[in-house]
């Protein structure tokens, strides 16, 4: 949608990009504020039950809160990546599809989407590696709690090594983590490269 050329497109792109240039720690704090104070007020105003749930206190919900904040922070980045991918789709192919009688929807699903394959690979790969590395947001939002509901591997390594001072265990965990990340990313990358289509 944001590739369409109207005057304010750049402005909107900028808005979606702003969370990405902010530090993840700060993003975590902003949302902590909103989850605690902002939602309480929204509940008073609207009376919807959804605002009154304990988004950071409940072991089941907190997971979604963290994921949501992560998405909010990085969405702009992936939007920009897809825009670059969309602009790389050659116009003549789309014209050819129009000549062959394809309508707008068909053009999008049968031509544009397959050609966006490389963008999908990049985006999924990057969000995967970023997801495996997540640390700052969790530290700012929940510190891994309540209990161990949002403890990530990196969080665990950090705690083991620097809070409990078990450097040996921490190092061992980090090696296992490294091998795991390496294997998962390689498998995913292989899988996606097979599926991409060439012109």
């Amino acid at each position, binding site marked *: *949608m*944001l590739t*369409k050329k*109207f005057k*304010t497109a*750049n402005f*909107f*792109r*900028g*808005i*979606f*990009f*702003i*969370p990405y*240039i*902010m*530090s*993840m*720690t*700060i993003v975590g*704090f*902003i*949302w902590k*504020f*909103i989850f605690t*104070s*902002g939602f*309480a*007020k*929204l509940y008073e*105003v609207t009376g919807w039950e959804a605002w009154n749930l304990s988004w950071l206190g409940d072991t089941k919900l907190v997971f979604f809160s963290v994921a949501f904040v992560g998405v*909010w922070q990085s*969405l702009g*980045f992936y939007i*920009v*990546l897809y*825009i*670059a991918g969309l602009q790389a789709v050659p116009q003549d192919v789309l014209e050819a599809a129009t000549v062959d009688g394809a309508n707008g929807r068909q053009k999008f699903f049968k031509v544009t989407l397959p050609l966006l394959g490389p963008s999908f690979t*990049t985006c999924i790969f*990057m969000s995967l590696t970023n997801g*495996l*590395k997540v*640390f*700052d947001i969790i*530290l700012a939002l929940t510190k891994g709690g309540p209990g161990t509901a949002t403890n990530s*591997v*990196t969080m665990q*390594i*950090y705690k083991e*090594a*620097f809070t409990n001072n078990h*450097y040996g265990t*921490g*190092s061992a965990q*980090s*090696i296992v*983590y*490294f091998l795991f*990340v*390496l294997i998962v990313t390689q498998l995913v990358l292989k899988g996606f490269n097979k599926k991409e289509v060439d012109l």
Partner: protein
Amino acid sequence: MTRKQKRLLNRMVMIVCLVVIAGIYIYPVYLMFMNSFKPFGEIIADVLALPTKPDLSNYSYVINKMKYVKLFRNNLVITATGIAGIVVFSSMAAYILDRRRGKYSSIVYTIIITPMLIPFQTIMITLLKAMNVIHLSGSKLGLGIQYWGFGIPMATFIFYNFMKTIPKELDESAVIDGASTTRTFMSIIFPLLKSVTVTVIVLDVMWIWNDFLLPLLMVNSNNETKTLVLAAYTFVGQMNTKWNYALTAMVLAVVPSIIVFILLQKYIVDGVVAGAVKG
């Protein structure tokens, strides 16, 4: 309704949708800014309301308490050290690795770029120990130098790929004119790398300026060497319930990057895309 009017209507609907979505999307940031102008009582009473009168006392308190100017200078020193080293070393390395191709250069290249695959958390424990031994921890310059190690693999990779597109004939003609290798690189090659240098600088500035974990490990012990994000983190931790000060500290930590982003939006977005696609 004519076809043209219908298209215009469609477009209007689309733009309105976009405005609404963008508004909701940016609302948290707006809330942060707005609430930083309110005294504590007003935040507790009503988060969503506009401040009754803009109040700057939060700002003066936080700027003094956090030693904001000092922190800002720390961040500048660390980022500048990091960027300078990364750009200089990786562009030179990429130049030689591309121009003097052979068995050894390809081995060296592989060794340089492999660390991109290693997650930071895997090496952070040993890194901290090693840096304590060679006294690079706990100082601003030391932290900047450590960023060289983390930034160079990616930067060399990007420079190397771009270097392939610069024709060798340029080097040859410079050599015929009597230029040394250093001189050829400085006056002929480096200016041609401008676009890709911008990419590297944008990516690394965003990363170093906002980085959290490495400064937390290296420079957290001393108030003199803290970075902006780190100080904001500690500050917010202390002020956990005093949201008026905490929010102000958060605003102060993000405002520099937002201003730079607004000024250089085009370069930043292009740089990030180029970095992601090439990486």
